[in-house]
């Protein structure tokens, strides 16, 4: 009798344990996938990770996987060479950003990634420079108003200024300030939450180097 009870208790622990760790599984799976974005060496690997993020997003209905899915797609768009195909990838990224907004995600981070999407649109066709650069700047200024300590917003604003022609108030000299601000904010973050957006420190350091040259 005692053995049956003990076995059933062990069984129950194993069962409830699997239900209890469901949330932890989601966070672990998402955190792992995010790491894989960075470590992807080929475009095929990045595409696989992007699809995995989409599956996590569809299964969980939370804003974080939609955010990272959009992030991976924007990265993929830079690797494509056909303008039309790249625009289609960005259209999909826009859908994920819209979904994340519907799920009331972090406003400042979503505004920042929206601005990055606008910048990606410019790189496909420079004729769009005037409209999308303005949109990106307006979106980033809102992102900074919502959360002045968002390092990604400052980094992207620096990128906006860096790519604006010097004659019109851009260039590396004017961009430096934002990259410095971003660096301070990146350094202040000790242990970031693995499923929250935490990218940008490495790219920011690179831009700091470039501006100081």
């Amino acid at each position: 009798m005692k053995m049956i009870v003990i076995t059933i208790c062990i069984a129950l622990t194993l069962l409830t344990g699997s239900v209890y760790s469901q949330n932890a599984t989601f966070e672990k799976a998402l955190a792992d996938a995010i790491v894989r974005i960075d470590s992807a060496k080929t475009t095929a690997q990045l595409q696989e990770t992007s699809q995995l993020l989409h599956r996590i997003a569809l299964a969980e209905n939370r804003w974080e996987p939609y955010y990272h899915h959009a992030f991976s797609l924007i990265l993929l768009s830079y690797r494509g060479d056909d303008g039309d195909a790249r625009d289609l990838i960005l259209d999909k990224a826009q859908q994920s950003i819209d979904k994340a907004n519907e799920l009331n995600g972090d406003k400042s981070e979503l505004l920042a990634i929206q601005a990055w999407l606008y910048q990606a649109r410019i790189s496909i066709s420079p004729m769009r420079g005037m409209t999308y650069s303005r949109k990106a700047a307006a979106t980033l200024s809102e992102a900074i108003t919502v959360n002045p300590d968002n390092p990604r917003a400052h980094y992207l604003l620096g990128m906006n200024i860096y790519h604006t022609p010097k004659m019109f108030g851009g260039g590396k000299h004017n961009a430096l300030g934002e990259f410095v601000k971003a660096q301070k904010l990146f350094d202040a973050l000790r242990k970031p939450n693995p499923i929250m957006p935490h990218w940008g420190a490495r790219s920011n350091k690179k831009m700091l180097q470039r501006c100081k040259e």
Partner: protein
Amino acid sequence: MRSVVVSLLFLFFTSFSFAQMVVTGTVTNRKGEPIPGANVIIGGTYRGTVTDSTGSFTLRLNDSDTVLIASFIGYSRERIVLKQHKPSVTLRFVLKKLSQRIDEVVITAGTYETADRQRSVTLQPLDIVTIPSAAGDIYGALSALPGTAPIGDDGRLFVRGGDAYEAKTFIDGLLVKKPYTSSFPDFASRGRFSPFLFSGTTFCTGGYSAQYGQALSSALILTSNSFPQNTQTEISLLTVGTGINRTYSGKRVAFTLGAEYMNLQPYYSVVKNRFEMNPYPQTIGLTFSSHLRVSDSASVKLFSTYSQSKLGLLYPDFNSSDSKVDLLLNNSNSYSNATYTGKLSDGWLLKAGFAYSYDWNTYDFSYYDIDEHNTYFQLKATLKRKFNTGTALLLGMEEGWNRFDQRFFRSADSFRWNGDFDDYTTALYSEVEQKVFRGMAIRAGVRAEQSSLLNKWAVAPRFAAAVSLSASSQISLAYGRFYQTPEESLLRFTHRLNFESATHYIANFQWEKKGRILRLETYYKDYDNLVTYDELLYWNADSYSNSGSGYSRGIDLFYRDRSTFRFMEYWLSYSYVDSKRKYRAYPQKVRPTFAPEHTLSVVAKTWIPRITSQIGVSMTYSSGRPYNDPNKPGFMTERVPFYQDISVNCSHLRKIFGKSAIIYLSVSNILGRENIYGYRFYNQPDSDGKFRPYAIMNGTKRFYLAALFITL
């Protein structure tokens, strides 16, 4: 006992056993067409894959995997539960398309929409301003769109063979009584408002919504700017004048105050004008606009302008071939417009407002003077509601009061004449737009109008439909009846007239894909009850009647490409017009002077990043316009030579003293072609019995404009 424990433990271990199963399959829609890029996910896990270009997929399943879910954006999800595990299984997912989103099919027949939206159909407001031939004038810019004719000696909008009075301008839904500056005949007027005041422009070349009326041909619907984002000051310095604008943007309220002064004397002292002017054209103007966020769901917009201008000209005296007359024009104009937009309970949206316009002109011709006052007031309210069934409903009413007063004085015999009237107009309108299954939308409306002065009323039906043929193309149809009260210049002699009317039939095909758009539109306009009078008895009320009629039919073609060339965009617009009418003093039905047979416009713009400049070129051609030669038999039988204009402009962006600045340069008619718009003839024949002609042309061959805009 031990066997029970062993069996229980065995049960748990088997659930983690490593049996694999291969599933292959396809994901298709209900028509059997494959859906590439669809997600196939193993339920309860994050494992899965994406279908390839043939809609096929392959997955390896564990024993514990029992559910597969296929999904794709715009379709409903599909689940398949595996009852048993075989080593290999083939599945087929059939996804059902979800009903189209409410705003996917937009009726485009007769409409060129230029709002700043993701899905912009044709032009953006900034595109309008940078059209070289426009020189910053909204109406000049619209003449680069199909359906309009370049009538350089007038400057107003002439749409699809229609006269300028048949096209009306609206700001935020309310009528603008005097959208053009005052000018003399043969001298072009311009729009009163800067294009920068508006965020959206909808140019309807026909078949427009029941919300608008009193325009036989076309409606230009302007939307004033939304809440400004920044507090800033803008200064403009031009070769023709100067202006300053101050915007204040707060949390709940924002306003802009502007002042401008134009004087062409410095310009004409350098560029010779064939006409002698005294005083040179000068204008002083003030603009105020304000935006107030009353609550989260309601806002109030105010728009007000005031301007004072004068112009003096020495023009040929057509009564005697050797002398000239002194013409002097003074104008005072004020326009104010206030609108309230608010969400009412249970989904209704209310848009209400009023507009007030006051215009005073004094014309001083050597032989006689004219003093004219026009006051116009309009009240309008519209209720809108969107229902879940894909239906949008609109109801509204409009009340207007038009007061006109003209005094005439002839110095030779001290003859005085006075004509004035008050006209109260009421209109009621209703419109329903319904999405009918996938890819089709229908809009039906009716408008009832009444004029107290004419003591007449009319009911105008409107109908439009659009069907999408594919993801990138659609056809659209429109039909409508339009009524318009005769012009004031006619009503000052008699009120015993009826509305003039026109019936429109429009068919349109539109294709739009990734930055390229093609529009082909054909139309037929049937004019009826046009006012006619006897030229020699123009002062006699009995000679006026609504016995004129006419037709206008043609084809408009528009092609715009923003993606083939990375640094350049261009568009091409062509119109063919076949039109005849008998109206006003015309003795018979002829092609009117403002309806050239062919009009072609090509605009190209390129952005050069290294010098942060945009360069534009526009070429306009139109076939010779008709004119009447009293020396020849028949009426309106002659044609002037064709019209051609090539203009260029350049906008250069730079920082000056740390402030954003734009340097703008433009030259119109760069080839210097001496375009003739028409001919006037002297009233008295010469010694050889012929009436001498006088060519109507521009005062200068080319127009140069240089401007500097700085934002502080």
